[in-house]
């Protein structure tokens, strides 16, 4: 069986600077794969390349064998690869529930004209989206705050809302951008459970992260980047014992592996 998502020799240069250099790895259906690396290792760039928010310089990303790099971001989302953002990127002036409802866009059956005219398809869409939004709110434990304006939410809830927005699109692969950043231990553990729950919904998860303990706990496999290149790939155990990885992390000042 071919892997769900293939990252194949993906390279990105900004002027003379190579941010990501010929990175190759596969993501299998149903797994949780994490991309880690010290600051400036090219994680975020890789993340944007996969979701096609940046154009690759060379190499390509394949989804079910089909090239998705350099497509418009919304096309990539249509194919089922959906990214989340860090906490501030939400629809601030909408309620939490509306944030989720609007994110059901990919599940629409009716056309824009249909929505304008209020056709049967549009009505059933809207009813369905409402139901689904409530389900997602329940799944993430956000029922209580569905009516709150998103801009009024505390940080922890914002992160969950980001995931909720991603879930609403009904993706095959969900790309999570540093889901544990800035969280304390309890919050991290809750989010770890949440991500596992996402996987249980049949969604493959690819996450980019800093927080080592959480990554070790949650990932099936881990890809490690340093200076834009892949230096290791394997299960959490394999990574923990990989000398190159240890060296890379010791070399950088602010990150230390483990606790």
């Amino acid at each position, binding site marked *: 069986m071919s892997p769900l998502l293939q990252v194949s020799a993906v390279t990105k240069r900004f002027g003379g600077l190579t941010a990501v250099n010929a990175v190759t790895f596969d993501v299998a259906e149903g797994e949780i794969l994490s991309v880690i690396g010290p600051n400036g290792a090219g994680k975020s760039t890789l993340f944007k390349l996969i979701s096609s928010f940046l154009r690759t310089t060379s190499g390509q990303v394949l989804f079910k064998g089909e090239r998705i790099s350099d497509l418009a971001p*919304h096309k990539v989302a249509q194919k089922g690869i959906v990214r989340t*953002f860090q906490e501030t990127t939400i*629809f601030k002036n*909408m309620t939490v529930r509306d944030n989720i409802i*609007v994110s059901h*866009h990919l599940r629409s059956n009716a056309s824009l004209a249909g*929505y*304008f005219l209020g056709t049967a398809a549009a009505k059933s869409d809207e009813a369905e989206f409402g139901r689904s939004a409530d389900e997602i709110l329940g799944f993430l434990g956000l029922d209580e705050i569905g009516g709150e304006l998103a801009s009024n939410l505390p940080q922890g809830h914002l992160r969950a809302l980001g995931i909720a927005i*991603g879930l609403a699109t009904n993706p095959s692969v969900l790309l999570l951008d540093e889901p544990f950043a800035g969280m304390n231990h309890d919050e991290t553990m809750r989010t770890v459970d949440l991500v596992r729950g996402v996987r249980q919904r049949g969604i493959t998860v690819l996450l980019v992260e800093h927080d080592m303990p959480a990554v070790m706990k949650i990932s099936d496999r881990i890809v490690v980047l340093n200076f834009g290149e892949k230096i290791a790939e394997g299960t959490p155990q394999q990574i923990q014992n990989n000398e190159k990885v240890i060296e890379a992390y010791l070399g950088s000042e602010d990150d230390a592996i483990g606790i």
Partner: protein
Amino acid sequence: MSRSKQIIGVAAFLFGVFVLVPLMIKLTGRWDFYYTLTSVALLSIASAGVWLTFYIGRINIGQGAYALVGGYVSAILVVKYGVSFWLTIPLAGLICGCLSILIGLPILRLKGVYFAMVTLVLTEVAKLTALALPITNGAKGISSIPLPGAISIFGLTIIPDFSQLASTKLAFYYLAVTLMVLSYAGLYRLVHSRIGHLCRSLQQNEELASSIGVNISYLRVIAYSVSSFLGGIAGAVFAAISQSIYPSSFQVADSINFMLNCFLGGLGYVFGPMLGTLVLYFGWDLLFTTGKFQLLIYSSLLIALMLALPNGILSLRLFNRKKAEP
């Protein structure tokens, strides 16, 4: 707000503009208000378009360009090709809509002040083009445009020939107000349907919108072309009222006014541009008795209003209860 209350509101509004206003004018004898209100209605249609572009997060200072194009399309079709005026209203709108797709595709990628400035330049471009083209009759403009003719179906006259009317004031008032009601009903529907929801997602975060699969450039162009459609029909009717169109019939000042109407009424409210237009246009008209101090008083009031209600008149509590953020 309950549905029945809403219906009563709409009915009262329709009664107001179609029956009460003409009645009041008859009673007070202020016939000049017909034209003032006709202008308000037409300008508020164009402003509604600008408001829609605000709604997708773009500051549009180019509506004058489309109003001008609409006016010319109608005038040229009527004068040179003998097309019925009534047909030219939708045609003017459609041609503006199509034109705006061509123009919008590249420029809608711009954001913030950059988009605003490009649209501002667009108004100037429209004027210069009208001056340069032979079909628009260049600097001489098109004048002596015939009044709208009659429409009849199966021998039944639905709309009388305007040139046979003793006064076209009332006729144009009804025409303008009808178009306004239709435009705002359409806009209201649009904003309160899922499309409005999607538009707001663009307004708030285009990146996120595209990450959830919204084709942002498509939606932007659609919204912009609806906006330009509205500009076009307003321009077409103005050309018919003044029976003339010149390159300077809609200029940068108009484009800016359309934008100001939206700000003044409130960007968060569908009916904001309507109220904004009423206040700005009527305000100027009412102040005409103040002679040379007119502009001074007008601008002072504008500044004061802005200081008191920076989020538009409709942000007043009084209105807020009725029309909460859609």
